[in-house]
């Protein structure tokens, strides 16, 4: 199983966790991002996720490398789903395994913040009465200010 993946298949946090963990680990932090039924006052019906797949996989791998640099000994798996997702389904799962809980929590939080900054994936929100492409950050993986912002959130 690839540790960085973009897939139209349903995500499986348990499988990714068992792929990643080893006897030296004392902690696993997992994050699942879910499709929410409301956004900015709108009633959300479903989301469609689109990706520039080869670059999205590279960007996820880059984020995993960044976490290795900041929290040595921590291992990460990040899978992002694309296509149509219903309310309550997981759009992204992150698994961070480490000897100690502090590093696992921090690496997991850092990864989701960086995903929102630099991974070329887009949400197309279908809500009651219409649809809209959501747009967040202008992706720039070299932007040190953005990296530092994610790091501060991770360590808050």
């Amino acid at each position: 199983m690839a540790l960085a993946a973009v897939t139209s298949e349903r995500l499986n946090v348990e499988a990714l966790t068992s792929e990643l963990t080893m006897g030296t680990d004392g902690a696993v932090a997992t994050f699942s991002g879910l499709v929410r039924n409301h956004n900015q006052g709108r009633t959300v019906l479903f989301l469609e996720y689109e990706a520039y797949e080869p670059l999205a996989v590279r960007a996820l791998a880059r984020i995993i490398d960044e976490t290795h640099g900041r929290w040595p000994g921590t291992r990460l798996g990040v899978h992002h789903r694309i296509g149509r997702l219903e309310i309550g389904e997981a759009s992204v799962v992150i698994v961070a395994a480490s000897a100690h809980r502090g590093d696992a929590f921090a690496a997991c939080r850092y990864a989701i913040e960086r995903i929102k900054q630099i991974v070329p994936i887009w949400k197309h929100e279908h809500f009651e009465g219409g649809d809209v492409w959501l747009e967040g950050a202008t992706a720039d993986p070299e932007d040190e200010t953005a990296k530092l912002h994610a790091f501060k959130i991770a360590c808050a």
Partner: protein
Amino acid sequence: MRVTIRLFARLRDLAGAGELTREIPGPATARTVWASLTAEIPALLEYERTLSVAVNAEYSRMAAAVQDGDEVAFLPPVSGG
């Protein structure tokens, strides 16, 4: 030279296609490809200051050189997670 242009999300909707092949006079950069594209589809100019660019599926800069056969992708602000 011939380049493949990839567009995503709302940029793709505005252009009406996610993949375009265009002849661009060389020497070209990502910026000259964008200029040529927006001359053809002015609605895309809305993204002039917020887009990111990738050449051959690697993040790049607008000043980067583009070669014959390259794939140039213009990316609106991302919203994964």
